């Protein structure tokens, strides 16, 4: 079975005036379809760099990353953008919904990027139903929603293009513990339905929901 993500001896170096900084040092791991993985580590350990590389927002200095078997290192910006649009769903700590668009429009946004005018009008409602958001909120703007509701919309937006993986950056970091737990329950349910989830977090409670945890320390995998 082909891994959804494969890191093959990946090194990421940031060239700075004060000297090069090695953020990731010879990292190799695989994520199989349907896995729920958490990535933990102290601040400055390289978690965000790892997330950026997994999300195809950046490319490695050395080594190779394969997304469903396709190497990304040689890809140009347009190809990386297309890959992000079609194969990756992002869930951010601060929800990051578009303030000018309502719930349905926010959820439909990636679908519009992918399909242009030929969007499936029912798809957004389906995924919003899947994340258990009340229908009367569909025409509300993000500022009219609670944090938990906004994060549900963000999850729905991440799911709309049927991505290979869901990349979550501290998905409960801006929510109270009860709402955070409900979001993690939702993630678990999505995982049970087949979604591959990678969750970068500081929070051990969040890590408990995952099948396995990758710990990063000083740019290397500690365990």
């Amino acid at each position: 079975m082909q891994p959804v993500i494969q890191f093959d001896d990946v090194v990421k170096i940031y060239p700075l005036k004060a000297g090069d900084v090695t953020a990731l040092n010879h990292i190799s791991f695989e994520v199989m379809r349907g896995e729920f993985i958490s990535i933990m580590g102290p601040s400055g350990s390289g978690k965000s760099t790892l997330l950026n590389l997994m999300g195809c927002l950046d490319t490695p200095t050395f080594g190779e990353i394969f997304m469903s078997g396709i190497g990304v290192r040689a890809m140009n910006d347009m190809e990386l953008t297309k890959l992000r649009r079609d194969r990756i769903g992002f869930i951010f700590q601060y929800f990051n919904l578009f303030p000018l668009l309502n719930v349905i429009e926010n959820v439909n946004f990636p679908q519009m990027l992918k399909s242009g005018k030929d969007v499936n009008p029912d798809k957004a409602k389906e995924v919003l139903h899947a994340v258990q958001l009340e229908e009367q909120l569909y025409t509300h703007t993000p500022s009219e929603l609670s944090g938990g509701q906004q994060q549900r919309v963000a999850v729905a937006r991440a799911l709309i293009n049927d991505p290979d993986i869901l990349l979550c950056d501290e998905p409960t970091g801006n929510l109270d513990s009860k709402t955070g737990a409900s979001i993690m329950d939702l993630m678990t349910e999505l995982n049970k339905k087949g979604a591959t989830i990678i969750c970068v977090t500081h929070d051990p409670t969040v890590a408990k929901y995952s099948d396995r945890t990758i710990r990063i320390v000083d740019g290397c995998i500690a365990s």
Partner: protein
Amino acid sequence: MIFWEIAKRNIRIHMLRSTLAMLGIVIGVVAIASMGILGNSMVATVSESLKSVGDSVIVSPYSGGGGGMGSGGGGGGSSSASLKITDQNYQQIKRVVAPNVATPVYSTSDHMKIGVGSDDIVATMYALPSADVPDIMKLQAGDYNNGNSGCLVGSTFAKDHNLKVGSRISIGTDGSKGTLRVTGIIEERGMSFDISTDNALVVTPEWFENAYNRNKDYDEVVVKVKEGDTATIKTNIEKQLNKHKDNKIVSVTDSKATLSSIYSTFSTVTTFVTAIGGISMVVAGVSIFNIMMMSVNERIKEIGIMRSIGTQKKEVMSMFIYEAAIIGVIGSIIGGILSVLAGYAVSALMLGTTKYLLTTANALSVGEGVSFGIVICLLCGIYPAWQAANLNPIDALRHE
């Protein structure tokens, strides 16, 4: 399209800022288009005034200057009083321009009184053969046949002095040159290179020669060109009469060439005033650039989110270009409409007429103003849009 919708909504939520930017464009378009309308109307007004003289060649005595405009306007009695065109020269001109008609013209200015007890006035008088008069001017009242003691008067002169057909005018100080009876009133001719009749009298050569003791020594010769072109006729006259470079006899003015030079000057003036209007458009462009940069800076995080979830650079760019285009198109169209009103007001105030407002040239001026406004907005939106599209998604996502 979602980016069009986002651009519209962004303008709507920053309505005041967008309206002020639009106002700049409105002012720019109004400045450019209304200046264009004013210039075009000026050209149209002058063209109307000069339309009757476009086919004339005026021959006047050579005074050492460069060409000159004939002695028509100033009349005789000036410093060039001793410079005349002899009958021999006139006959030469007549032969050269045939079959076109060469009309010999006397001119002077003199004191005159209209009616008993009226004020003494000074006016210009022309004398030209009665047979040639209908070729040069038209009458609005009366008859061309003015006999020996009859005269024609210009429309402005008649209006100013309340003259009618049959009125009498005493010529010379205390009527020393005799009395003339008005037999016809000449239609308004406007500005002219040959003879300016609007404020003048036209008398017979016989009466003029007798009153001013003149004998076939003319002040100018007017050739109305009906066959051939004015430039060739001018050259032919010069070849015939100014054979010796150091002893020129006549100055020849081609009214068409002079008109062309006048139109060219007006065109330059129009371009200049339009360019001044263009400065306000540049200022408006700077304002658009400024608000577009503000818009990009305010939305860095949003751009980062868009890019991270798969929005291509060109799509981000299009969103900002749409925003600039909406401001540009709405501002320019409003400006175009207002510029017609401004053009109406400026024409009415400065030219005293608005009859030249609805012309193709003015429509083009408005079109140019509107197009320029839209183009400026798009150009000023390109760099901010490009900057937004090329933000690093990781840095943009981190932006607070």
